[in-house]
């Protein structure tokens, strides 16, 4: 059986690391949950002078982190976050692992207890390819993004981009930024059409924080602001959504 966090990474080149690095402010303090061999943390440490910590379940991966001078704790993210006191980090990152967590809601709460911001990246189960696969083949989708058969997958809590947004809403979490990606290294320019994102995106990356001002049941007066910034020669659409 695959250990959680070990084989969920579906693409060798994690170009999402670049995007995550772009979100994070320099000199901040970051915890990467399921940090693997420390690629993202090492990148953050070298390029932005970030104080990096990690949690990883595989000892082999940790040995690679240690050579790079990273501090990593051996353990299962499902139960090791209690190590850290409240607000000990600026960002807690959970890269393509939330769908493999026992209780995603608890993880989100823990992440936002120990960090000001949480960065979550997740595969979008509602991608059109998956929808078509299920519709025409009638079997659980297996492809590059989700490379496991249903009986051997570590992914136990699949969700779509919209599902995740709904969960954030339910938990009164503010989504500060969201970025949608396809597997072909191209970012989707969705022009504000989240329905389209939920249909075409392979992955979503979310920057979330606790909503300090929101009370349960408060009337929503959402506004959207589209910011186009140039990145690596491509046009990225980012959404800022406040309440």
């Amino acid at each position: 059986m695959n250990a959680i966090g070990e084989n969920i990474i579906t693409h060798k080149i994690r170009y999402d690391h670049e995007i995550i690095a772009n979100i994070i402010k320099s000199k901040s303090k970051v915890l990467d949950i399921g940090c693997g061999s420390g690629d993202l943390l090492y990148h953050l440490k070298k390029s932005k002078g970030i104080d990096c910590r990690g949690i990883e379940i595989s000892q082999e991966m940790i040995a690679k982190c240690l050579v790079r001078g990273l501090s990593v704790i051996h353990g299962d993210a499902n139960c090791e976050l209690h190590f850290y006191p409240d607000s000990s980090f600026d960002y807690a990152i959970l890269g393509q692992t939330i769908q493999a967590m026992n209780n995603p809601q608890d993880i989100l709460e823990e992440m936002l207890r120990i960090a000001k911001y949480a960065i979550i990246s997740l595969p979008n189960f509602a991608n059109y390819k998956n929808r078509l696969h299920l519709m025409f083949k009638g079997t659980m989708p297996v492809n590059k993004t989700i490379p496991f058969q249903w009986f051997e997958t570590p992914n136990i809590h699949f969700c779509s981009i919209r599902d995740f947004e709904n969960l954030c809403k339910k938990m009164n979490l503010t989504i500060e930024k969201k970025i949608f990606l396809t597997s072909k290294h191209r970012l989707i320019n969705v022009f504000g059409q989240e329905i389209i994102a939920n249909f075409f995106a392979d992955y979503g990356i979310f920057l979330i924080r606790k909503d300090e001002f929101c009370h349960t049941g408060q009337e929503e007066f959402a506004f959207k602001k589209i910011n186009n910034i140039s990145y690596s020669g491509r046009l990225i659409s980012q959404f800022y959504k406040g309440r």
Partner: protein
Amino acid sequence: MKVKSCFGPNYKEYDIGEIVFLGKEQPLKLSCGLEISDFPIAYQTYGTLNEDRSNAILICHALTGDQYVASTHPITQKNGWWDFMIGKNKTIDTKKYFVICSNILGGCMGSFGPKSIDKKTSKPYGINFPVITIQDMVHAQNLLIEHFGIKKLHAVIGGSTGGMQVLAWSTLYPNKVKLLIPIATSYRHSPQNIAFHEVGRQAIMADSNWCEGNYIEHKKFPIRGLSLARMTAHITYLCESALQRKFGRDLNNKNSFSFNFDCEFQIENYLHHQGSRFVERFDPNSYLFITKAVDYFDLESDYMGNLSNAFVKFSKNKEGKFCLISCLDDWLFPTQETKKITKALSSCSINTSSVIISSNNGHDSFLIENEMLKNTIYGFINQN
């Protein structure tokens, strides 16, 4: 300076290597209040100290270990206890690092211990030796480091009792170390472990040849007591699955019971073998004092019940990093205890790594060659 010392029931004399006398200018004040001065510490070094004296690694040995970490033991003639770890082109490469290992205070391999002669009475201290602590051992190691003119150690590494010394280094000399690797250890000795130690001590003291601690004067030796103490302790160093795997219920070269109290099972044979080997190289009084020192170790209560407070000073050492290693099937120092240290260190914002080694030899796993263990230590001490 090299000296000789007597070992075992036959008081055979062996050459025990390098010795230095420390605490000459200023006596060392022990935790019990007594002061010691001009006392010997025996040590071994490997590799060469570089010009700016920044490549030194201190190895802290375990309860009944000694300074022969990577060279032939003068009594047993066996390889050093961490021979697979330390040496040229090994995990801790002596071409790159200057490795120091000293016999702990209270030990019997040349350092100041119960076997040493009391200048006032011209007799061995025996049971009148001052009761020492892990912290006292570390103070003595610090004097040795000063003797070498080393301002800051690149790393301090130790397992079990040695791991306690590593933790004590971070609390007593937080600015004199960069990297700390406590292995298979705890912030305090658990009641269960104290219980096992007490059984061992009582076994020695119940032996009539112990002579109230004065066996050297009487030219006797509590062989049965000391080997019984070792046998009990050895059960705790392994684990149920290891005993099952190594010995099972197998008998010694026979297929049926002999219906008497001979040593029949292989596990019995193994324990007797361990016991009889141990008495050849270890001093019974030393065993009493060292086990006591380990039992006294409790960083949590030293810092008002809050373990994090122990590491507050270390957290100001910008270069300071911890890498905690525990063994999965160690029931003497279970991984939970290491997790508690990890939590305390993390809450002080100290750069902490923690690795659980999948092992199958219980507590002794850190003394047995293991790729995971080697990779972890190699990665941590050679980090950039």
